[in-house]
Each structure stands twice: as C-alpha cells, then as structure tokens.
C-alpha cells in the first residue's frame, strides 16, 4: 500500500516540490520578513524654542540609531505627515523649554505618536523615553551634585539575549509548516481519490481497511520528517537558531504531531466530497488556528478566555511550546511531557474519529 502511494507521489514531482522547497522558502521569508524591531523610526522635529537646549535634545534623537529626523514641520503639519506615512512620531518643543532647563527646572516636551500601529507606537515611546532619561542624567551630572544612583536594576536576558526575531519564530514556524503540508497534502490526495472513484476500487481489493489508511499515511509521515530536517537545517545554519536540548525528543514530538495532523487531514477528506471543499476546510480548521492560536506569533496569555479554551484543542500549540523549550531553553522530558501527553490524546481521538467516518463512508 505504502509503496503504491510513494509511486503516486513520485509521479507528481510538483507534490514533492510543494513538500520540500516550500517549507525552506517559507522559512526564509518568515525569518527575514517578520521582525518587530522598529529601528530608524522616521521622526519629525518641531522646534519652536530655538535654544541650545532644544537643539541638544533634537541632536540626541538624531544621533540615536533608533530615530531618523525626516522633517522639521510646523505643529499643525504633523497630522498630514502621519497620513502620508512619512513620519511615525514628532517631537514638539514649545518656547520656554530651554529657559526652564537653563534655570535648572523640569521642562516638558511633547512626543506625538502615530498610534495606528500600536506595537510600533509602544516601542517608539519606550525608545524616546530612554533618550529623555539619558538627557536628564547628563544635565544633572553637569550640575556637579552627587548623582550616584540610589537603586539599580540589572536585567539578564536569557535564551535570546540579542532579541533576534527568527530565534523566536523558527521553532513556532516549524509547527505551522509541518501542519500545512501534512493536513493539506493528505486531505487533497484522498479527496482526489474519492472524486475519481479510485478509493472504492481500493476498498474492493482484498487489502484490509486499516492497512489502506496506514499505507496512505506512512509516505506523508516520511515527507513530514523530511520537511522537519529541511527546516532544522535552514533554521540552524541561516538564522543561527540553537538546538540546546535533545534532538531525539524533538524528532519524537514532531512525529507525534505529524500523526495528529495527518489524522486531521484524513478526517477532513472523509467528510468532504471534493478537493475544493477539502482545501477550504483544511485552511479553516488547521492552518488558521495553527497560525493564530498556537502562540507562534501572538501570546496565548493575552487572548480572551473563549480563544484560550479553543487553543487547547490546537495541536500546534503544544508543539510550539515544546519546541521552544527544547531548542531555546535546552529543556528535556521533564518540561515536555505535558505536551507529549496532550498530543497523544489528540492523536488517538482524531484517528478514531477518522477511521469511524472512513468506514461509514465506504459502507
């Protein structure tokens, strides 16, 4: 059975291309394309103060690698710059700013932020705040008063100290890419056999039902593991993603996850009459949840309760968690076992359902 399916796959090299080249390309695209770091934020400076102090602050923003001064508009022109997308923030210094500082008093500056994109806006405010604090520190130092800090906070960033997005994304992306391939390939290939009527022929042959299903799944399991290797090789070489924990555990979990996804593909194909429908159902039930509800991009902690509950039924969630633990934190069995158990339960449930539906369909 398995060798027949392998033959099928071999005859359609596009399938193999879809299975092997696509994950590598996707990984490169995601790894390079998705980055949350906003550096070189285009900022406008409105200096109505015209004092050495106001110029000093503008220079501090200009020198920082986080900001690029792109315009020096009047305050009422800021909104237009935001609308055209030419600036994302504006520093507004009103008359009196320099005089206050020169008199050793606090002085206010306005930071106008284009809040449409909240994650960029938050980062802009954090970065601007750091510059303002550095400016304050410098001014106080120059007063010649004792400025030894009264309390210090030292941050130790573990696992990904250089804050590289790919190191965060690649482990999660693995789950997504494996899932896409497994669910869609099985769902489509089996739906095609239904459409063409070759499935009924198979069942009329003396091969057992269980063997047919198994034989259909084994080659795709092989493709999935091949995909995993491609992803791991690209991830570790191009993006320097570490694999600190056990590779064996990683492969074991991936295998279990693939069984879940293949089972899901089987279930979809058993309930869909044609390829078109199978594709749509695959997209909605597996791709979308794997992308959105797995914690790969968006933290599950922040989601509303209803989505948190749904995410428990998304296998990708467990694989993302386990992969991050193993690859980035060097975790072992002791941190991964809950994910292992959850994936096993999902696998058993989905395969049972799929087999039952399959049998009902041929009966």
């Amino acid at each position, binding site marked *: 059975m398995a060798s027949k399916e392998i033959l099928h796959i071999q005859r359609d090299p*596009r399938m193999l291309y*879809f299975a092997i080249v696509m994950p590598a390309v996707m990984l490169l695209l*995601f790894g*390079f394309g998705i*980055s*949350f770091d906003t550096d*070189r934020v285009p900022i406008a400076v409105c200096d109505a103060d015209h004092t050495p102090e106001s110029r000093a602050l503008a220079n501090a923003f200009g020198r920082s690698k986080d900001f690029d001064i792109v315009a020096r508009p009047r305050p009422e022109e800021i*909104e237009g710059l935001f*609308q055209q*997308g030419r600036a994302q923030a504006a520093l507004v210094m009103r008359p009196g700013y320099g005089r206050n500082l020169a008199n*050793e*008093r*606090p*002085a*206010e*500056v*306005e*930071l106008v*932020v*284009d*809040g*449409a*994109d*909240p*994650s*960029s806006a*938050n*980062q802009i405010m954090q970065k601007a*705040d*750091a510059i303002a604090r550095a400016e*304050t520190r410098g001014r*106080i130092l120059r007063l010649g*008063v004792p400025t030894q*800090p009264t*309390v*210090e*906070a*030292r941050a*130790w*960033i573990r*696992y*990904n100290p250089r804050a590289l997005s790919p*190191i*965060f994304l690649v482990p999660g992306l693995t789950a997504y890419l494996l899932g896409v391939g497994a669910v869609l390939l099985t769902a489509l290939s089996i739906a095609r056999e239904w459409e063409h009527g070759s499935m009924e022929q198979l069942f009329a042959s003396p091969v057992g039902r269980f063997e047919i299903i198994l034989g259909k799944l084994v080659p795709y399991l092989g493709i999935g593991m091949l995909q995993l290797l491609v992803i791991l090789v690209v991830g570790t070489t191009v993006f320097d993603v570490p694999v600190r924990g056990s590779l064996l555990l990683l492969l074991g979990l991936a295998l279990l996850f693939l069984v879940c996804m293949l089972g899901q593909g089987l279930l979809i194909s058993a309930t869909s009459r044609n*390829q078109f429908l199978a594709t749509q159902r695959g997209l909605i039930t597996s791709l*979308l949840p794997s992308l*959105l*509800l797995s914690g790969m*991009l*968006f*933290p599950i*902690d*922040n*989601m509303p309760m209803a*989505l948190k509950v749904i995410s428990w039924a998304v296998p990708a969630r467990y694989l993302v*968690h386990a992969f*991050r633990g193993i690859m980035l*934190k060097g*975790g072992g069995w002791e*941190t991964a076992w809950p994910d292992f158990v959850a994936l096993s339960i999902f696998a058993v449930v989905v395969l049972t359902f799929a087999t039952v539906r399959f049998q009902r369909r041929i009966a």
Partner: protein
Amino acid sequence: VKVERLKGRRLAWSQFRAVVRKEALQTFRDRRIISMLVLAPLIQVVLFGLAVDFDVDHVPTAVVDMDGSATSRAQLRQLLADGTLRRVARVSTEAEANQLLDQGVAGAAVIIPAGFGADLEAGRSPAVQVLVDGADPLRSSTVVSTTSQFFGRLAAQGLRERLAEAGRTHLPEVKLVPRVFFNPRLKTAVYMVPGILAMLLVSVTTIVTAMGLSREREMGTLEQLLVTPVEPLTLLGGKMVPFVAVGFFDVLLLLAIMTGLFEVPIRGPLPVLALGTLLYVCSTLGVGLLVSTVSSDQQQGFMGGFLFMLPAALLSGIMTPVSSMPAWLQPVTWLNPLRFFAELVRGVLLRGAGFRQVWPQLLILTVFGVTLMSVATYRFRRKLA
C-alpha cells in the same frame, strides 16, 4: 456601417450580460461556495481580531524577595500594580526562579537582594536583578523597559530627596509627554483588522478564480463555451464580474464587523476606499487568472494561488512593518499589491487620509491592476487559441 457596429456592440453587451447571469447563477447556486465566500472571511476576521494582540501585559513573573522588609514588599506591590507583570510564583532563591523560566511557567523574575530596604534608606544603592525569558523579543524588551523605568523613577525620587536635604528643590529634568494620534488606546485589533481585509480579498478572489478556472479546464467546459459565438474577452469579463461583486460585498461585510465589533473608525472618504478596492481586486483577479493559465487541475490551481498568497501576505507590512525588514528585502515589497492596498485601507480608515494623501497608492494600484489584467487576459486568450 455605423448601424452594424452599433448592433455588434449591443450583441456583445447582451452576450456579456448572459455570461454574467450564467456565472452568477452557477456560483451562487452552490451553497458551499457561497458559505466559503462569505462565512470563511467572517470567521477569519473575527478570529484574527480577537487573537491578534501585540500588547505585552500579564507577563507571568516570579518574585524572589530576599529582603522581606516593608520597603521591599511595598516596592514590589507597586511594580506589579500596572498589570504589565503578573505574579505567578514566590520563590526564595535565584536558582528556583531560573527553573521556572526554564519550564516556561514564568517569563520574568524580579530578585530583590537581602538588605534592600536598609540599603535604600542608607543611600547605599542596592542592585535589583531582573531575569527575562528573551525568547520573544517583543515581550522581553517590554519587561526590560518597564522594570528599568520603574526603578529609574525610584532612583530619581531618592536622588531628589537627597538633593532636597542639600537644599536643592528642583532639577533640570526632561519630561516626555506622549500624545497618541488615531488609536489613542493603542488597540492592536484596530490596526490589524483593516490589514486582514487585504489578505481576505486575496483568498476570495485569487484562489477562487484560480481553482474555478482550473476546474473548468480539468472538465473541459471552457472549450465548450468557446465554440459558442461569445467572444473570449466577453466571456472572461463575464466570469470576473460575480467575483468583483463578491469582493465588494465582503468589504462591506467586514467594514460592518470592524466598526461594530472592533471599534475601527471610518475617518476618511469611502469613495476613495471603493476606488482602491476596485483597482486592487483587478490585480488579485489578474493573479488568479494568471495562475489558472499555468495550472492543469484544481490542485495545482490551489497551490499556485496559495504560493502567491503566503509570501504576499508576509511581505506586505500587514503583520509587521516593512521598515523593519532587512534593507535588501524591502524593494521586493514594491512588487506587492497587498502592501499598497493595506496602506490605503489603514490610511483612509484610521488616519482619515483622503485622495490628496493616498494618491500614490491609488496610482500604483492602477498600474498593478492594468498590467496584471492585460498580461493575464493575453495569456488566457493565447492558451485558448
């Protein structure tokens, strides 16, 4: 001669209408296709809007208070008060905190050293340690900046007290007062949902056309239509019109959900949005048509559409800003209609941009629409001939 030409035009028009009617009937008769064109975008936009949240708050935090004084307890309470950090565990050693980080139970740990309260009072500058799980850069940078801001403020307060004792009442401080335009409560959904619109239109136009025309090729019905006296161009136009209509219907539907459920404002002129949508749908339908000319069956049609959609969605600035991409990758986004449509939608809805602000996007979308449609039509006709 004039009458003849007029007759010909009238004939072409009536043929066109007939094809549109046939296509519309065929598409809308199938309840599953309708549910896919309407229900699927609905599910996706709601799911996206609810799940997508880049706000970093409730970071699970382990607290190690080696001091246990009234001061340390009070400071910790204040640190946790704004909700960015949420205490999930109280442990007594750094090793235990590290273990919680390893297990993923905690995303950060705050360690107050022994003697913190006494040192602070005596002016001996105690050092607080913050351990951060850096796997997620967005989260770790927020944790670092939250804690450093908090303890920075504490330090400034101490400094002020010390200077007050020395007779100094004020300091030259630079105070940054933020003012947020367009999305003052900084809600992620308000920004993301309009971007999702651009992605959904691809799946209801590009993939559906690619698969639909590939199916006709697979079954040979396209050739049947060609032996009828209908012009290929009329035929093609008639086939596209129902999908343009579905695209517009989806835009209206999603606009209703956006404003009703996710509080997305509509600040700019809707006609500009409608024009942008029309130009954009021309591009996405053109891509679908192109894909169908290189596919021989539905599976290939789907894969082709999918292979266009994923990279196009990634390199559009919808999820993460284009300016954050590496410099060599940014020029690629110039070839992507999704990028300009997303910019247009967000500009019009959120920032109240009108024709004067978004004409560059409209111009680029026109170029894309006309080019893609012409190339696709040309290839389609050649393939049929």
